[in-house]
């Protein structure tokens, strides 16, 4: 286990889940999905159409900055298919996967990026859900990720519902949750992570449903991950 980090596991679990997807999108502040998408395209889904805020399409290059809406994700692209286009695509039912994070995510797959406390004069103003209020309901499968698996971020009931809808998975460094009958269930535990550990770090009741451990990262996955992100930008989020 020493040869891989929590960020590697999280990124690889996402990359694997993108198998079979036709197109996908991530927004701002989405380093882990950005790397996972590139990894998935190199590993097992070369035809996956990769969209991002800049309009860059299928950009595949070494990650050189922490931002995920800058020129490095646009420059090499053959064409431009911008944010407005992506929202429209989702609205007409054509977006397969969108990545979203959330300050709070609850057991019902609801996401809060808006406020803790009252909406006007909140206790904590969060940065906002960006596109999530339309993307989570409009995208075929919304992939939520939490770079840290903590009680305060994985709650029984969010303070405010910024968005809900077609959440398919919630990825964390400890496990992957899947929405089953409107409720998050463990689908896969990270190698060596017990249900007890997951429960200790989760704000809602986690059922021991016998979900298996994820197969450890392969050498190929780890090698490609380092090729894509040699500077380890993926660690910035999980640290």
């Amino acid at each position: 286990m020493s040869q891989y980090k929590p960020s590697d596991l999280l990124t690889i679990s996402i990359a694997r889940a993108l198998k079979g997807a036709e197109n996908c999108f991530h927004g701002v502040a989405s380093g882990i999905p950005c790397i996972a998408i590139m990894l998935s395209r190199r590993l097992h889904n070369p035809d996956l159409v990769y969209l991002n805020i800049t309009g860059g399409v299928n950009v595949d290059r070494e990650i050189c900055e922490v931002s995920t809406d800058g020129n490095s994700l646009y420059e090499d692209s053959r064409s431009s298919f911008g944010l407005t286009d992506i929202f429209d695509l989702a609205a007409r039912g054509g977006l397969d996967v969108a990545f979203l994070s959330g300050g709070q995510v609850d057991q019902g797959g609801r996401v809060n990026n808006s406020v803790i406390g009252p909406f006007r004069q909140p206790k904590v103003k969060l940065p906002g859900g960006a596109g999530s209020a339309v993307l989570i309901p409009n995208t075929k499968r919304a992939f939520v990720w939490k770079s840290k698996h903590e009680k305060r971020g994985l709650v029984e009931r969010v303070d405010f519902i910024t968005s809900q809808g077609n959440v398919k998975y919630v990825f964390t460094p400890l496990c992957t949750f899947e929405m089953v009958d409107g409720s998050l269930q463990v689908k896969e535990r990270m190698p060596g992570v017990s249900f007890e550990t997951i429960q200790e770090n989760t704000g809602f009741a986690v059922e021991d449903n016998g979900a298996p451990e994820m197969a450890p990262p392969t050498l190929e996955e780890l090698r490609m991950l380092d090729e894509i992100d040699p500077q380890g930008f993926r660690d910035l989020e999980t640290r």
Partner: protein
Amino acid sequence: MSKITQLHTVLEQIQDGSMIALGGNVMYRSPVGVAKALAKVGKKNLHLVKTAMAMEADLLCGTGSVSTVSAGFVGYETQYGLCAFYRKGVESGAVQAQEHACYSVITALRASAYGVPFLPIRGFNGSDLVDAIGFKTVKDPYTGEELLAIAAMRPDVGVLHVQKADRFGNCEIIGSQYEDQTIARAAKKLLITCEEIVPDDYFGAHKKADLSGVTVTWVVQLKNGAAPGACPGYYDIDHETMQRFKTLKTPEQLKAYLEEGES
């Protein structure tokens, strides 16, 4: 007829209480230079509009220049975290956060560009934002389907920072255009700030402008107008300045920072 003018001339024509739409995205080609200028001359009660903004909102909230922010996302990215002055403004009640999905900002601007008071939108199902913001619904007269309606936002001024512009307002945009095209059509008046003014023969049969000057009102040369954010082809994010900016805690510190100069 040349549209080239000086920034102070434009500032005089921007009223307190104006709705201002901002181009670029987060730390990229955002019109930070204009935001600084608005803050320095003490504009009040501005309504800022943009899908995903950062420093413009942060510093204008810090100087007490903002009454409302309509945006899907207000924050720097991973590296520089949240917009502290903006947060403080909202949490104190001084600033009203009209939280949107980025797509509803685009839709509100589109409605303005299309000359209609609202547009229907797909999305927001089950979101508490609907009641919090007061979005209304509309019934499709053909199918009877009930959709969310987004009211037009018609900015008094749109502000875009670009790399190059000619005196007619035709612009070259290097890198992503983000939502600049929509802003250019939605705003009543459009201010272009640019790194460089180019001669009349820069655009033509050999090279079309990325953004047409037809909707441009003013062109102002403003070097480093997106700094400390990035302007592709000219400069990257100025991390030193950003780190220093993030240490500012009080309006007085912010004011001192703004007085220092143009970067």
